């Protein structure tokens, strides 16, 4: 499949530079939907299986059961991966219309290829593209944006690992495509209220660019096959 | 214990028998079944023993290995018990089936050897805080026809008696480190004092009376049983009520009394038999499973 690469500049007061994004869909044969998402050097591979049959103990009678598994690049998945899995799972559940596939199971596997900062937002973007690729009914799309507030108060979007280490606070938001509302947010470090509001505003602007990027890569993909 | 299903009529039959002090195999209420004890049955071990009590067949192997003493008791060695309920006994024990019963028996054995008087562990210490002997006592359950704990405790006592631990000479080398060399002469070895090691007596209450050494059928119609570990001096080291029923206090005191009497009467012949086997030494014709 193709590989869309374009750098993006978000013109606004604070530096809203996003790193070079790359996305590729249905690159794996076994899963029903798959995608690989690259933000700068951070890259995540996502695979979606389902709707498939579900274990009786996990069955919900009016909607699908979604399971998310995050495999770290090296070593076993620990408590941090389990907390990230909860965030990704509940964000996807908010976006998916799972009541159209009751009593079935969807499983989303995210394999971390390389982590150079904003890992959770890269996972979210990869998850969204994989769900789209699997053709699952979704109420809205969602994208992940990570903001870091460095020593002197500037907001850096899509920080690298180095920027994350030096930052005073780190926030990751999931923004939905219809009303640009905050679906998910996890934070590290302490920050003031207006810094938070600023970060949300910056993330909403950055999400415009990301959704535009989604449309471009999907248009480029189907332009070949039509 | 592996259970066997018996119908109500058989239970009533056994109960009436016990009431008249006559059990299905003709024994009185406090008689043991015919018991065979043999030591040094397996060669790869430092000490081993096999006990065949009626159809209950237990093989115990003891291997001594070097290890670090426990931080709380730096000047003593220690025992590690592992009970393997092999599928030979009943198909139920296949795979992980036997683990629950195995851990129950091993926890009783740990409790029995917890107090300091039953076995002198200080002899097992080589260098306090650094090196000591660890005795891995592995109990293998080959056939199970009730009363596993009594047979296991007798087999462990016999195996401990037959254990030969090679002597260790500790020499100081130049920069203060300790040099250990184990003597490989099979006769230059240390033996353990096993007189104080207790034996377990299981008393099962059937109807209003209690019986010793209950077979599987008798255990199936007993609501509760009392486990008592008795030393040759008559002291009681571990008492446990096992089973789903309850016992009234009078019968508990009676059972402790019988348990002590039967337990004490068990030690003397056992030690005599072990001494005889010791004296025969090499000339003894090993019977093993071929007998």
């Amino acid at each position, binding site marked *: 499949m193709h590989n869309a690469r374009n750098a993006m500049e978000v013109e606004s007061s604070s530096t809203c530079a996003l790193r070079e994004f790359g996305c590729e869909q249905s690159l794996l044969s076994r899963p029903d939907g798959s995608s690989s998402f690259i933000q700068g050097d951070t890259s995540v591979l996502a695979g979606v299986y389902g709707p498939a049959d579900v274990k009786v103990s996990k069955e919900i009678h009016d909607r699908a059961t979604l399971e998310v598994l995050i495999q770290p690049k090296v070593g076993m998945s620990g408590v941090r991966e389990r907390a990230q899995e909860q965030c990704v799972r509940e964000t996807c559940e908010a976006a998916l219309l799972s009541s159209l596939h009751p009593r079935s199971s969807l499983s989303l596997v995210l394999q971390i290829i390389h982590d150079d900062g904003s890992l959770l937002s890269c996972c979210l973007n990869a998850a969204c593209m994989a769900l789209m690729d699997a053709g699952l009914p979704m109420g809205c799309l969602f994208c992940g944006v990570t903001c870091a507030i460095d020593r002197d108060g500037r907001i850096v979007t899509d920080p690298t690992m180095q920027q994350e280490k030096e930052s005073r606070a780190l926030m990751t938001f999931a923004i939905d495509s219809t009303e640009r509302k905050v679906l998910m947010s996890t934070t590290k470090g302490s920050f003031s209220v207006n810094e938070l509001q600023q970060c949300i505003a910056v993330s909403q602007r950055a999400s415009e660019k990301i959704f535009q990027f989604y449309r471009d890569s999907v248009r480029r993909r189907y332009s070949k096959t039509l | 214990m592996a259970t066997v299903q018996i119908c109500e009529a058989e239970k009533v039959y056994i109960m009436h028998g016990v009431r008249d002090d006559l059990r299905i195999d003709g024994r009185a209420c406090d008689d043991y079944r015919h018991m065979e004890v043999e030591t040094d049955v397996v060669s790869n071990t430092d000490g081993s023993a096999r006990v065949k009590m009626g159809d209950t067949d237990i093989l115990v192997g003891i291997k001594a290995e070097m290890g670090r003493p426990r931080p709380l008791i730096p000047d003593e060695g220690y025992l590690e018990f592992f009970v393997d309920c092999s599928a030979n006994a009943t198909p139920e024990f296949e795979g992980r089936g036997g683990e629950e019963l195995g851990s129950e028996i091993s*926890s009783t054995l740990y409790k029995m050897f917890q107090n300091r008087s039953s076995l002198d562990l200080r002899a097992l210490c080589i260098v306090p805080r650094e090196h000591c002997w660890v005795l891995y006592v592995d109990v293998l359950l080959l056939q199970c026809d009730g009363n596993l704990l009594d047979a296991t405790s007798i087999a462990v006592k016999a195996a401990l008696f037959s254990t030969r631990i090679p002597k260790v000479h500790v020499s100081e080398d130049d920069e203060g480190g300790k040099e250990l060399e184990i003597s490989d002469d099979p006769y230059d070895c240390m033996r353990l004092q096993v007189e104080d090691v207790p034996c377990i007596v299981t008393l099962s209450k059937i109807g209003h009376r209690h019986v010793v050494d209950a077979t599987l059928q008798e255990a199936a119609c007993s609501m509760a049983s009392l486990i008592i570990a008795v030393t040759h001096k008559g002291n009681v080291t571990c008492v446990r009520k096992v089973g789903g029923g309850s016992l009234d206090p009078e019968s508990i005191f009676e059972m402790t009394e019988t348990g002590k009497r039967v337990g004490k009467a068990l030690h003397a012949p056992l030690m005599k038999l072990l001494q005889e086997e010791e004296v025969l030494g090499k000339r003894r014709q090993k019977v093993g499973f071929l007998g």
Partner: protein
Amino acid sequence: MPVDTRRVRAPEESQCPLLFVPLLPRGPLRTVAQPEKARVDGRQRSQVDVRPVFARCGLVTQAKGSAYMEAGKTKVLCAVYGPRESERKDDTDMKAGRLVCDFRYAPFSCPKRGTWIQGSEERDAAQALQEALRPGLCLHRYPRAQVEVNVLVLEHDGSVLAHAVTCASMALVDAGVEMYDLVLGCALRQDGDSYLLDPTLAEESGGHATQPEDNQGGVTVALLPSLGQVSGLHADGELRDESVSAAVRACMEGCHRLYPVVRRALVYAARRKAAPPGDSLET
């Protein structure tokens, strides 16, 4: 210890500070239980002297029934769920219900920190608890169902198994599970010729004297008070057999001493839970 990936990572090796307390002269830690000396908390030796007990039912609202009990500093909490469907399909007993017990120490409950993973000691205690409770329960009233008893020790200051049995039977009554009788537990520490009833942790573990006197040991008894039946008995250490019988009698006496306190707590809980049926019963 295998790395526990499901919990926040701790340093591989950490020692309890008590190990580093400069040791007292190596003599036996016998300050506690000198033969003739009275006990540290003023209770008498060889007397049926039980620590003051605080008992309350119904603290865990999510559970069908629950009970909390404090004896001196020992604190035990128990919650009962069920009778509910038993997950383990293979050995569901068609005629009678099943009793499943889980016993757990909170990591901060003992002087030396316990781990989260259930140790063999906790499994033994759960087995002992189950065998002590079973005779008291009418399990035949709940075919194919399972009653779950979860006991948690918040603070361990001696005779934990005994108080856990009493607390569990109060929780079962609070849950409305039918029982032949309450089950009360009492523990005792035999020390030479005298005994210490309801021992504290120091008394229970103290006395590991260097010279092994005979007749050192601990006895725990579980009793059905009004039927007068012993449903659980545990003794370890080395005891003369007549002191075992004396210890069992003393423990039974201790249980009877405990009975009115437990009864008052249960009656209080029953009255608080529902008004007398006189007015609420239509006909």
